[in-house]
């Protein structure tokens, strides 16, 4: 069965409501819709109490990012009974309070929708070819990868 899948990489902001509505409108087989939106925070990624950031700039590997996300959406659809998936990731300059990423999953049951969304977010944090650079008062710096994101992603590995 083919389910609606939307993957978009874009500079522009997105509208969470219309993305959720697009996955569920006119359908009566969907019991659960989970959305995750990642938002640019003012605190530095490096830890609490650091300098406030003025903006993030997201670089990505165009071509690879789309293909990689599509493969992971396919994996999610194979692992959980999802009835629709939307992934939108922004690139370019993003200021605190703005959206960075959106994952929406729809399913007959809530467990599948939650698990599918968490799996895709853990993947996007660790394996999707995007890199964040933070602009602060004292210059700008590339964000370091977090071990705890790797740990979160590792829990989905089939043993």
């Amino acid at each position: 069965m083919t389910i609606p899948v939307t993957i978009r990489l874009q500079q522009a902001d997105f509208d969470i409501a219309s993305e959720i509505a697009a996955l569920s409108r006119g359908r009566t087989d969907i019991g659960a819709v989970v959305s995750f939106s990642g938002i640019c925070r003012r605190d530095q990624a490096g830890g609490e109490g650091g300098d406030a950031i003025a903006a993030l700039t997201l670089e990505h590997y165009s071509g690879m990012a789309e293909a990689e996300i599509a493969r992971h959406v396919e994996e999610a659809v194979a692992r959980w009974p999802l009835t629709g998936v939307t992934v939108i990731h922004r690139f370019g300059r993003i200021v605190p309070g703005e959206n960075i990423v959106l994952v929406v999953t729809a399913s007959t049951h809530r467990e599948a929708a939650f698990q599918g969304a968490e799996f895709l977010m853990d993947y996007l944090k660790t394996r999707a070819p995007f890199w964040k650079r933070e602009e602060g008062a004292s210059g700008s710096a590339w964000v370091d990868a977090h071990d705890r994101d790797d740990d979160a992603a590792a829990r989905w590995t089939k043993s």
Partner: protein
Amino acid sequence: MKVLYFAWVRERIGKAEEALDPPPTVATVAELIAWLSQRGEEYAHAFEKPKVIRAAIDRMHVKQDTTIAGAREIAFFPPMTGG
């Protein structure tokens, strides 16, 4: 082959991509990194900690012991920080 650089790898090398033709003795991703490191200070700086560097061949993540034979596009970048 086309070689791409991203994030601080790109910044240190000073370019986003280039066409390269390494000698046939360069067989794996790790050997390509070692060969690139010899090309100048900017490359040596970018690849000073080779274990940190991630690579993709033809837009698929690969380990550094992967052969580069037949690769059309090889990319080097730091650990990903998307999401």
